[in-house]
């Protein structure tokens, strides 16, 4: 039951952050999140822009309202953490190696990502961007 309450609260909060809910009605769903354009240049060269790569290639699921964000928000709230921790970009506890392992091997509902999805150089940049715990 606790989980159901949390999910309901999560939907309401997610929506409230982006639009005022109409009086009495259900909260509106979040708007579509336009992703960044993938950075120009050689995808195989080191020094890619991690934030932009993350938004372009991981943004399908890990921006506001995305599939990954929704599931992670639920997990974080079950663990007693604030819902904002469902967004990977807000996490302070991820390590670079952990990010790389999850991307290449998948985890739970997340399928593994190929090198065409994300090259090693791009993954290094994303891991550096998200891996704030070192």
């Amino acid at each position: 039951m606790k989980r159901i309450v949390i999910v309901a609260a999560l939907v309401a909060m997610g929506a409230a952050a982006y639009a005022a809910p109409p009086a009495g009605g259900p909260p509106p769903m979040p708007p579509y999140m336009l992703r960044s354009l993938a950075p120009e240049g050689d995808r195989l060269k080191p020094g890619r822009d991690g934030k932009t790569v993350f938004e372009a290639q991981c943004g399908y699921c890990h921006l506001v309202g995305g599939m990954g964000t929704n599931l992670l928000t639920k997990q974080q709230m079950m663990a007693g953490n604030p819902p904002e921790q469902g967004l990977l970009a807000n996490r302070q506890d991820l390590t670079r190696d952990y990010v790389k392992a999850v991307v290449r091997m998948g985890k739970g509902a997340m399928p593994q990502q190929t090198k065409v999805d994300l090259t090693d150089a791009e993954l290094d940049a994303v891991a550096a961007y998200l891996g704030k715990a070192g």
Partner: protein
Amino acid sequence: MKLHLPPRVSPKQFQSAMTAFAGVVGKDWVMDSDADRDAYADTYAPGSTEEWPASAAVAPATVDEVRAIVRLANEHKVPLWPVARGKNLGYGTAAPRMEGTVVMDLGRMNKVLELDSTLAYCVVEPGVGFYDLYDKIQREKAPLWLSVPGNAWGSVLGNALEHGIGYTSYGLHARNLCGVEAVLPDGDLLRTGMGAMKNNPAFHLFPMSYGPTWDLAFSQSNIGIVTKAGVWLQPAPETSLEIVWDIPKVEDIGWVIDTITPLKISGLIDQNVFIPSWLGKMVLKGQRKDFWDKPSAIPDWRVDELLKEHKLGYWQVALRLYGEEPVVKARAEVVKAAMKRNLAAAPQENWWRQGDPIGQYDTTMGVPSAVPLQMSDWIGGRGAHMGFSPVVPATGKHVLDQMARSRKIIADFDVDFYASFTIGGRFANNVNMLMYDRDNAEEVAKMRKLFDALIVETAKAGYAEYRTHLGWMDPVMETFDFNNHALRRFDEKVKSALDPNGIIAPGKQGVWPAVYADKRGSAYKGGQ
């Protein structure tokens, strides 16, 4: 995953093929490590991923590179499994049908080559995903809408070529394809339709060729690799109205189909009407164990309780109309009056007008979303799904008959019943979603037996699937039995003539080239 070589290819031959491929695409885009093979495995495999193992993947960036790889593959006798973005989730992901086949990942060919707002079409390469095309349309403020499948992480062309369906007026995605460019098994390059003439501006506008029309011969097919195609798009409407009815009882699906189908055939409704059962809503509300904590199927009495607790009908019809406001209003009156004959409760109505925001999950307005994949979390663990998807005539009688049969078989296996029907015109696609935990061997084995039973019993009643997972491509093709499997005999005659080395996607949809004929059924361990 360890290396599984293609049949009759030695390690030395294989290595020389990889070296030759690297000479075309560069060594970084030939991916043949154990980790690379894992990356191209079926992420929802019902059983071991080693039943459908790729030996490597190669990722060309241009048509010329595709042609060069195909020629080299012929030379080295190494077969290729082309994927657009490799996100065919529930049907095999990027994994090949035959062991050792090299995945040709076309994800790097991701250009939107044309976007024409006047004639409402685009020309895209196979690596263009629904999100990519949607973002491009938003950035250019083009007055065009997409039609997207339930999971829109994949490729626009890949989904259309696999006969994917969406929930707008353009929901029969293969029908939106117009004018295909394909690399043939010998490396030649073909353009269909008006594109067969150099520089013909009607390439992606007129849907037929002079003489035989081949466009759809490249869909669910292994006679070529599509490198670009035209896709017709819906002009953004001035308004749209969503009308939502909760349909109380399971057997009500009969009259719902008989009410909507004639309006769909007449053109009054132009949307593909998606009718999911209650479980489609429930999977987004939490995990199965929150609602039923036993491994046995959720019993009917508990379903009734859940429907009451969550104010759900057994089915929900969320029908959408598109167009100018007076036209939409007039159409809505006809639809509402028709539904009212069987359902007194007034529907909920949600108007959208140009300039209003569009929600992130509005798939019936062509917004791409991967959120339906959240259903993987319903079971927990490494959640996965497979869809059993027969096509039935869109009448209440056929739909009720099909549903009763599937429901009984699924109940006999003590599995939850999660069905949807999508009315595409004179037919309905029935998807029975089977959800399981990949790490529960007993559950996986049960699902496989259940899948076998569904195919066999459904075929006995005269219905067939429109699409299936790698592991059942042969058994489903086997059900197309008219005149001693005349369709398969024809497909294979064409396949073997065009592709004597069996280079492109051997075994795709149960069509085997003569050179690999002994592989039919080889990886399929039905019911184990």
